[in-house]
Structures are given as structure tokens and as C-alpha cells.
């Protein structure tokens, strides 16, 4: 219960970050160079769009999914808790790929993207703790 609530709270931070990045992307502010290093390079790269959809928007949807599932799970919907783990693990793997792209392909880091990766890592830790503790008592 507590783990689900903390996952819900953490996912809200991720949601806010992803919404900010989506707005930056859509309004074209990101294309300009700013003091915040790297975001313009990263958001204007071809990797920032998947099939015409800004990656940040997909991220926002994913965080909203995590929030919904963990809220439902906290209120006792078991199936939501079961779905949460694969979603978060998928997001974690995706974040690793994005960090790889920033480090070795685009050669620029965007702080807001790194923040998102940190949030996803925190969610992964929470979910894994949940998995380990769920097994122990039995």
C-alpha cells in the first residue's frame, strides 16, 4: 500500500517533467539554444520524435499510466499492481536507451531528460522492493 502510494507520488514528478518537455517540444522553444545546455540539441534531434509523436508526450502518457495503476493498486485493485511492474521495467529499459543516445549519439545531455531517467530509476527501485517483499512472507 505504502509502496504504491510512493510510486504514485514519484510518478507525478515524472508526469510534470514530461509535460514540461512536451510543451517545450511542441511550441518550438526547445529548438532555440538556451543557457540550459543540451535540451535544444536533444529535443531537436530525430530521436525526439517517434512516428510523428513527440517522445516527451509518450513519456507523459507512461507516467500517467504509472500513476493510474499505482493509485488503483493502492486502493486494492490487484490487477493494476500486476501490470505496474512490467510497465515500469519497460520504462527503465527505455530510459537506459535514451541515456545511451544522449551520451554517444547526440553528444548532449538534457537535464529534464536526465531527471526523467532518475524518476524512472526511482520507480524501478520501488517496484522491485514491492516484488521482493511480496515474496518474502510466503
Amino acid at each position: 500500500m505504502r509502496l504504491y502510494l510512493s510510486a504514485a507520488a514519484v510518478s507525478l514528478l515524472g508526469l510534470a517533467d514530461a509535460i514540461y518537455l512536451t510543451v517545450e517540444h511542441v511550441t518550438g522553444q526547445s529548438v532555440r539554444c538556451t543557457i540550459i545546455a543540451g535540451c535544444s540539441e536533444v529535443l531537436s534531434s530525430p530521436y525526439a520524435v517517434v512516428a510523428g509523436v513527440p517522445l516527451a508526450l509518450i513519456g507523459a502518457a507512461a507516467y500517467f499510466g504509472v500513476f493510474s495503476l499505482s493509485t488503483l493498486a493502492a486502493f486494492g485493485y490487484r490487477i493494476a499492481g500486476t501490470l505496474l511492474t512490467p510497465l515500469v521495467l519497460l520504462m527503465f529499459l527505455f530510459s537506459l536507451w535514451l541515456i545511451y543516445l544522449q551520451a554517444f549519439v547526440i553528444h548532449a545531455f538534457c537535464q529534464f531528460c536526465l531527471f526523467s531517467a532518475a524518476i524512472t530509476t526511482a520507480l524501478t527501485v520501488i517496484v522491485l522492493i514491492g516484488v521482493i517483499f511480496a515474496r518474502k512472507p510466503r
Partner: protein
Amino acid sequence: MKRTLPFIIILAVLGVALGSAWYMTRSASQPTAPAASTTSGVANNQAQPAPLKGVPGAEPPYTLGSPNAPAHLEEFGDYQCPPCGMFHPILQQMHKEFGDKLQITFREFPLTPAHQHALAAASAAEAAGLQGRFWEMHDLIYEHQNDWKDKFDVRPIFEGYAKDIGLDVERYKRDIGSEVVAQRIFLDGKRGHSLGVKGTPTVFLNGREVPFEALPADSLRVLIQREINNAGNR
């Protein structure tokens, strides 16, 4: 009640998320509204915000075109910023097309923590300016942006440009670290901050910010022509 509460919470969060996204999109695109209407061919002078003044930048500024031009364009640029590099040929083309009807001013706005060579590039252009060759250096630095931006040490490259445009290289080397050059860059930056410049390229046309999406040649041309027409009607 307990069964529906999580759904109410989820819907509330969705509402807040969509609402804040809508609000942020709106406030980000607000300055673009008047110019967007002009690019579609509708002249709507009432909707224009008042021109911004700001504090003065480095004096005298480096300009192209006539000081009596009806349209005055001021760019805040960073030599290492890729979109500024892409904007450079557009501005050259505008200068060619409009000639004396358009005055172009370039202001230094190096984004130092983000771009490690931006300050060195700005200093190189300003040092060339002290020998009356600002625009020649400016053009070379922008045109060769991809050749130097990933290099470890850019000084020999810029010195090469200095030699190419016929500068007194020894004087250039002294000037590049001089107080005059540093002060000019500082003053341009100060002016930029007073005008609310946060990124580059930021372009003002007769004191009004041109939205980033209106910087391609086709839309910029329309905006400049409109300023010239407006001045003719007055």
C-alpha cells in the same frame, strides 16, 4: 465510495495535467500571436505589442544597412548555437534583398555554460571588429561552425580566420583578451537580458520579438516587408 475514489483521483490528475499543458502552451505562444496573423497575410496592427526599448548594448553596435532604414532587425546570437548558424545565411539573404531598407544589428549573446567555445568565438568577432573587420570574422565563424565547434582548442582556428581576412594577427591576439572586448560582450548580454532574451537566436524587428517559427526566410521576408510598408504609410 472506496471503489470509485481512485478513479476520481486519476481523473483529477488527468484534468490538472491537461489544464497545465494547455496553459503552458498558451503562455509560450502568446508573443507569437500577432506575427502569426501577419504571416498569414492579415495585417492587424492593433494587436501588436509596444516595441521594447531595453538598456543600451555595446556602442557603437555592429550593423549592416542604413541607419535610416524603415526596418531595423536586431539579432541576439551565439556562434556555437546550431540554429543561429542556420539563421546566418537567411539574414545575409535579407540584407541582399532589402539593402538600405533594412538595418541589421548583431548582438553577442554567448551561452557560456552550454557552449564551451561561444565566448571565445564572440571575443574573436569583437576583436576583429576593433580592426574594422567584424562582419568578415562573423561570417567566417558562422560558416565554419561545424569545423570548430567540437574541437578542443579553437584559438588557432580563429587566428587562422584572422589571418585570412587580413587582420594584424598580433594585435588581434592582444585584443581578444582585452577589457574592451569583454565589456562589449557584457553590455550586449545586459541589453539582451533587459529585453527578456533567454535563448538564441532571438530576433527583434523594430523592437518587437519575432517568434522563432517566423525566422525562416519566407515568413521573415513578409514581416520585414510589412514594416517597410507601414513606414511608407505613415
